[in-house]
């Protein structure tokens, strides 16, 4: 239990509770926000400073098998960016794929207190949780890859909808995942079994199955909604990165038919093609995509903005990584996981003079600037795919400072700007309140994390205190104080304590009888025993099981004891 704390006189941005820059105190006790604390409580003077809830990253790649391969394959990326140990914190290395300790410290040092790892194979869940254990300060959770799962495909093909739903619930529980993730549904069977081919259309038959990506997506959206998961199915659409893919993205969103679905890194899925030309150059369809999202409240998205400089493309979309390899010709990792997923990794550099890269950068900004509802079009770079999380402060400045944006636009490939609509949204500037929505309140709400992203009474006491600065990049790069679970982890820019965050996961109810459907598949086709597959509780030191809607309703119906 942490001691009581009063943050005095800060300008508070807490959009979830309608607080927009009012000067007031924030009180903390027992790791939570409280209405008041005794007069002798410790005080942090925040006069002239901005107080926000801790940042929440809805989609990043920070832990697990593919992340570790990406770390291992880039010693050159670590050597130039080292992280020194202190008396209380561990050493590490940075670059686009930092070591675990460095990941935790650097997120915290940017004022982030929670981050969701967005793509974990079920077989890699245990590994991911082991890395989480070594990722300090921040709270974490992960999305589990289900969209190319062979057993799930078999159940769907045979029309066994109830068993499909039960099996999804079992898999979420067995792996201690937070949400189901679909990546390029249908692609793996083509990639692994058809000489590295790929799926290209939503109505194409998936190799070896009487199924289409459309059917797979529809069934997962339905099952996710029926289970009442706190975060809906998290979808990486088909045709990522391909010219003309915005139609696939619009079609995918239409499949939801009013049910909740989250489309991730939507920037990578917002490409048209140059009219009248057969060439490969993409154009921006940010306007069409934004219009759809703006008018369909069941849909949410994160942007997946591209920032110039080094990145690492790491994805369960193996054919995509293979395509990227042809551009760079450098290192390439492919890693297949039995019955569950593919994976591809390619170190990549986005360059402002290159047409496609500049267009991607512009589309990311357009999507932010065209959004009517910051609660549903939230912040991400798909770290480290579009750029490192260390570039978040610069992206915030690009959104808040139109003059700065104009200067940057002058430096990039001008032909690309002509094929985007970025110049048409030149005047919009995000306010601090809107930044607070897209970087914390919005992601927390979309994730269904009721204790995160706000400073109302009862919220987790994750608080970031920034020194106001006209240069928003500078301001958001170096918060002065960061408080995690009520503990001042960073004070006056210095780490004062080691802290281990929580792991969020769901445990939807399922009929135990479903194991009799699942186990025979393991006996025949897996190389790990069924009994050894589910992840034991001890892999999470500080778990927080987030209830599904039915579980929450049931808990609500019982009087508190």
């Amino acid at each position: 239990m942490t001691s009581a704390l009063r943050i005095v006189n800060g300008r508070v941005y807490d959009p979830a509770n309608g607080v927009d820059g009012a000067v007031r105190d924030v009180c903390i006790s027992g790791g939570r926000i409280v209405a008041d604390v005794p007069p002798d409580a410790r005080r942090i003077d925040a006069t002239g400073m901005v107080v926000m809830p801790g940042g929440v990253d809805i989609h990043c790649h920070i832990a697990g098998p593919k992340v570790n391969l990406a770390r291992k394959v880039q010693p050159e990326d670590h050597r130039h960016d080292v992280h020194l140990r202190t008396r209380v914190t561990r050493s590490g290395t940075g670059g686009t794929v930092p070591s675990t300790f460095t990941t935790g410290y650097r997120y915290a040092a940017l004022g982030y207190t929670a981050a969701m790892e967005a793509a974990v194979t079920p077989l890699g869940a245990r590994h991911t949780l082991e890395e989480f254990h070594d990722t300090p300060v921040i709270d974490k959770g992960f999305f589990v890859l289900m969209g190319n799962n062979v057993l799930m495909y078999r159940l769907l093909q045979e029309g066994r909808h109830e068993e499909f739903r039960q099996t999804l619930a079992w898999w979420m529980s067995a792996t201690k995942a937070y949400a189901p993730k679909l990546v390029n549904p249908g692609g793996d069977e083509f990639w692994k079994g058809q000489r590295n081919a790929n799926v290209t259309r939503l109505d194409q038959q998936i190799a070896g199955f009487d199924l289409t990506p459309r059917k797979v997506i529809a069934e997962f959206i339905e099952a996710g909604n029926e289970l009442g998961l706190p975060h809906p199915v998290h979808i990486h659409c088909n045709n990522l990165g391909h010219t003309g893919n915005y139609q696939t993205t619009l079609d995918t969103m239409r499949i939801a038919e009013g049910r909740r679905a989250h489309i991730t890194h939507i920037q990578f899925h917002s490409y048209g093609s140059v009219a009248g030309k057969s060439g490969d150059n993409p154009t921006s369809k940010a306007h069409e995509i934004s219009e759809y999202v703006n008018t369909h409240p069941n849909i949410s998205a994160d942007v997946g903005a591209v920032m110039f400089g080094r990145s690492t493309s790491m994805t369960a979309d193996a054919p995509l990584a293979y395509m990227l390899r042809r551009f760079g010709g450098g290192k390439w990792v492919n890693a297949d996981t039995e019955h569950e997923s593919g994976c591809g990794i390619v170190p990549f550099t986005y360059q402002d003079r290159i047409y496609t890269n500049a267009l991607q950068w512009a589309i990311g900004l357009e999507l932010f600037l065209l959004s009517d509802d910051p609660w549903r079009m939230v912040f991400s770079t798909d770290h480290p795919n579009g750029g490192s999380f260390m570039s978040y402060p610069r992206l915030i400045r690009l959104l808040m400072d139109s003059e700065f944006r104009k200067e940057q636009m002058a430096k990039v490939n001008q032909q690309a700007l002509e094929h985007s609509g970025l110049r048409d949204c030149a005047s919009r500037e995000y306010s601090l309140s809107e930044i607070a929505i897209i970087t914390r309140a919005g992601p927390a709400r979309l994730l269904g994390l009721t204790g995160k992203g706000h400073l109302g009474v009862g919220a987790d006491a994750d608080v970031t205190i920034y020194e106001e600065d006209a240069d928003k990049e500078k301001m958001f790069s170096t918060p002065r104080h960061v408080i995690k679970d009520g503990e001042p982890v960073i004070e006056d820019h210095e780490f004062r304590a080691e802290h281990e965050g929580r792991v969020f996961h769901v445990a939807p109810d399922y009929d135990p009888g479903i194991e009799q459907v699942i186990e025979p598949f393991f006996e025949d086709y897996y190389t790990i025993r069924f009994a050894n597959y589910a992840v034991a509780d001890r892999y999470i030191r500080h778990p927080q099981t987030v209830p599904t809607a039915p579980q929450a309703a049931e808990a609500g119906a019982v009087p508190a004891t």
Partner: protein
Amino acid sequence: MGDNIKVVADATCTFCGCVCDDMVLTVDLDQKRITKSENACVLGKAWFKEHAIEERPFALVDGREATTDEGVEAAAQILANARFPVVYGLSDTTCEAQKVAVAIADMVGGCLDTTTSVCHGPTGIAFQSGGESTASLGEIKNRADLVVFWGGNPAEAHPRLFTRYAVTAKGMYTPNGRKDRTIVLVDVRRTPSTPVADIFLQVKPRTDFEVLWALRALVKGRKIDPSIEQRTGVSLAVLEDLVDRMKRCRYGALLFGMGLTMNRGRHFNAGAILALATDLNEFTHFVAKPVRGHGNVTGADNVVSWQTGFPFGVNFSRGYPRFNPGEFTTADLLSRGDADAALIIASDPASNFPKAAIEHLKRIPVINLDPKLTHTGRLARVSFTTATYGINVPGTVYRMDDVPITLRPAFDSPYPSDEQVLTAIRDRVRELLGGNRVPAGEALAGVAVS
């Protein structure tokens, strides 16, 4: 046999990198030994049989029997006073213990290295330079219709690699097991593995690189001179046939051993075979895998990588991790006489390192953790008897294909685990140093401070 019998199903064998998790162990709890190990191969059976509880001192300090606590105090004093200690081994212990070992090296500003540096280290280096196409073993079981073994003898070193994963294993697209696969073996000599193969390529010793490079050239449609046969012992026609098969297969796998990595060419050989698999992906789906030896050497690679960014051969003396094989790899730094103390966990360098390295180990204070008395244990100043992972100790190990598996220990040991001893040492060193050792004058200036 006593009456107090327990059966442990779905237990895991940690003898080799196959990490088979389908053991059925019969345990005599009174005698504290495993009397039967169903599904184990000949190596696994010996592993389970030989790890009964022996009467050994908990610790030896300067040759005198001591308690674990006394050993911890002596070990912590050595590490806290050392200027350039090396922490080495780790391939036969749990990830939970490995994490603490890396923490100790970080805290004191020493070196951290694993047995990877003397087995598939060159593969790690090759991976860093180009990447790889790889797969979990289940993909090979279910999909591979062409499997090429290169520079290894699995029949004797990894027996169940054939039956459980890659040769006779039946899977989704290989329902007839062996009949659905073409097996190729490449080696410098005939071994008990040879009869398994449909095609055997006997290459002249020390010419693996030439054969691999010729295959790469043929895959890319280049001409190879027939004189390749004089050089390597393999005719052009055989190479062309193999290339044709590799391009035509549906899902190909190259599984390679230390015959490639600890031979002339080392990381060039490993790089060549990884590149061959990568090249073949222009034509079909192809993967390559190093066949790993120790039960959790893959876990060591993973833990060290996620904590430091580098897989082995890491130095912390500047206050942050640096990677330089040849400089920070243990055999090299001991041979040069560099380290002034060593913490050696679950491995026996005194039995297999170069003479100069062993001579240096005899000169410096060594701390050793092992279930058995080893050559390293005999020369150690502080020697701990620890419980055996997988048999007595729970925890996590990573199979050679990076799949993590949770151990189901068979019976309790009176001895502490590596993790427990290392945690006690870490906590005591932290007390002695007052926290992590931060290099004087800060390393930001780039000056090495020890």
